[in-house]
């Protein structure tokens, strides 16, 4: 064995170099968070109104729906899969729930929790179909969820006959418009979901198995992990959270809109990827996803506040997403 020579850069003392390495290492771990903070600072200087408590609540409330989709997407991507159908399932869950909470379609049930529950079941059902196809019949996730994107959207239009469902019961609107001690309901909901997701992912065996399957499915299987069940369930979770997003959106817009959620999967994937989760699976953190979702929310809100034309907004958003992924891949190369 060749003796491993300690590399010493000429001109630099060993201590200096270590500090630089340490800083870079720290930055790697918290890179996105630092970018996020920088963005907030820059925006607050440009528009002091940005930091008003009401605006912060706005950002949180507006981010909550994408946040829910992103949390589900994190679970899926961690296993090395992807879910392109979240926007369509959001719409389906939203209109199903709406149909049980509006007199416009002659609903006899008017209890908001029941209506929401049925909407969630709709999301679970569709997620289960995707999960089955991916886990049991090994159809690539991209293909399955691409198909489900179409199917779910089609079902949504069939179910509503293409028309929005108006006149949602006031009791249902609380999901999107209610407040608890000044905190909007959607924010409370996503906080709860995040906490539960965090516990599941980091404090349970199930969570560890998810990382294992994503890291190396074959090894996980050989080690006795029921990989099929793991893969199946993450799509169910994604479907459930998409439907929950749909319920909140319906409550916020006071109508069950079949055209809701178009292209929402892109923002969800962006949040996950920006947050540092690798698309190949097995690597990543839920906290990163939340920062990613908040980053997108702040960008949307901030650019609107600054009055940036929506055309520029799209370019900037795309550039930031690419930049973040570039960061991620460079980090891995070393």
């Amino acid at each position, binding site marked *: 064995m060749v003796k491993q020579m300690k590399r010493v850069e000429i001109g630099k003392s060993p201590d200096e170099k270590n500090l630089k390495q340490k800083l870079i290492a720290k930055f790697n771990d918290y890179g996105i968070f630092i970018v996020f903070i*920088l963005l907030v600072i820059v925006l607050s200087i440009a528009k002091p109104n940005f930091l*008003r408590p009401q605006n912060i609540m706005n950002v949180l409330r*507006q981010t909550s729906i994408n946040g829910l989709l992103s949390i589900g997407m994190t679970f899926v991507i961690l296993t090395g899969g992807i879910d392109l159908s979240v926007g369509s399932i959001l719409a389906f869950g939203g209109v199903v729930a709406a149909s049980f909470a509006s007199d416009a379609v002659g609903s006899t049930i008017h209890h908001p929790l029941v209506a929401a529950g049925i909407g969630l079941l709709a999301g679970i059902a569709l997620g289960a179909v995707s999960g089955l196809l991916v886990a049991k019949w090994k159809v690539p996730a991209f293909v399955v969820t691409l198909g489900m994107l179409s199917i779910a959207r089609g079902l949504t239009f069939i179910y509503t006959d293409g028309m*929005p469902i108006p*006149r949602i019961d006031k009791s249902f609107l609380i999901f999107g418009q209610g407040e608890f001690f000044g905190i909007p309901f959607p924010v409370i909901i996503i906080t709860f979901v995040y906490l539960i997701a965090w516990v599941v992912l980091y404090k349970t065996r199930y969570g560890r198995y998810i990382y294992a399957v994503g890291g190396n499915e074959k090894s996980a299987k050989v080690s006795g992990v029921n990989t099929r069940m793991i893969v199946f369930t993450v799509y169910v979770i994604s479907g459930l959270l998409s439907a929950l997003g749909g319920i909140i959106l319906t409550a916020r817009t006071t109508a069950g809109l079949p055209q809701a959620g178009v292209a929402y999967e892109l923002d969800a994937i962006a949040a996950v990827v920006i947050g540092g989760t690798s698309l190949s699976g097995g690597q990543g953190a839920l906290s990163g996803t939340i920062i990613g979702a908040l980053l997108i929310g702040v960008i949307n809100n901030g650019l*609107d506040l600054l009055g940036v*034309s929506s055309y*520029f907004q799209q370019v900037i958003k795309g550039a930031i997403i690419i930049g973040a992924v570039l960061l991620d891949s460079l980090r891995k190369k070393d």
Partner: protein
Amino acid sequence: MKRVLSVCMIVMFTMTMVFAAGSQEAEGEKTYNVGAAVYGLQGEYMRLWTTALERHPDVVSGLVKITVFDGKYDASVQQAQFETMSTQGYDGALFVPIDIEAGAAAVATAKSAGIPVVGSNTRVNSDDLLSYVGSDDKKSGYMEAISVIEQIGGSGNVVIIEGPIGQSAQIERRAGNMKALEENPSVKVLEMRTANWSRAEALSLMENWLNAHPGKIDGVIGQNDEMALGAIQAIEQAGLNVKDFGIAGIDGVTDAMLAVKDKKMVSILQDATAQAQGALDVLLAELIGPSYVPKAKVWDSIDFNGGSEAIYNVPWVPITMENVDDLLAERSELTQR
């Protein structure tokens, strides 16, 4: 090193966007911050509306600062934008909603923040609007359908291409279409579907319909010009003669006016300048008070009445061979940079 570079890149983008925004804060004099929440900017009509708004004399002079909020055809985005306007303490808002029902929540948000909202171009089911400046879509729906029926000689088969389902323009133009069709029972509707105001979607739709009903379609009722133009493209690409079809649209976008000149279709001009500038006048009358003098040309033909009316009906202008050249000239004046 590479990592630091990437981060610098991101930060630079951030800084760029801050300066791209280029906020012009007028010092001293009171400026009115008005948000214009439009449902989407992919179609020419809304772009004309927005340009006309920015050409309003009080905007040009700096008295009013307009921020355009692109709703991206998504009701929840419009909802979020109204929340932003409320938080930021905008003085007033102009609203062109994507959905007649969902828009009500947005208006309610503005109302609870004390922000007056004037609707324009498309309706919303809300009692909280200060006023509405738009055109009667039932009327234009009726007019275009009658025109197609006349073009095909009073009997035959037509197809109807609709706007986004649930937007007031779609709902009301459909009602107008149906009224005309009820009066002419020898005209049958073979197909009716939405193409979401999009030329590309309408092209695909029409292609499929031409295949499904070869030789049977006599007329095309497009609830807006973009979609009628898409249908025309489909017909031409199928090697058929556009003049064998009776085609009508609504809005008077530039390509449609050119098509009218070529006798390929009939169209009705929707006056974007009147709707946009008129709505701003009504809003400013509320914000500034009775001393405000409205600036839009449309008040030569309809009564401003101090901006107190609930609905201002902007008349439609049927596009004919006699007026098309003048209209095109006005249009290029508006779109000149």
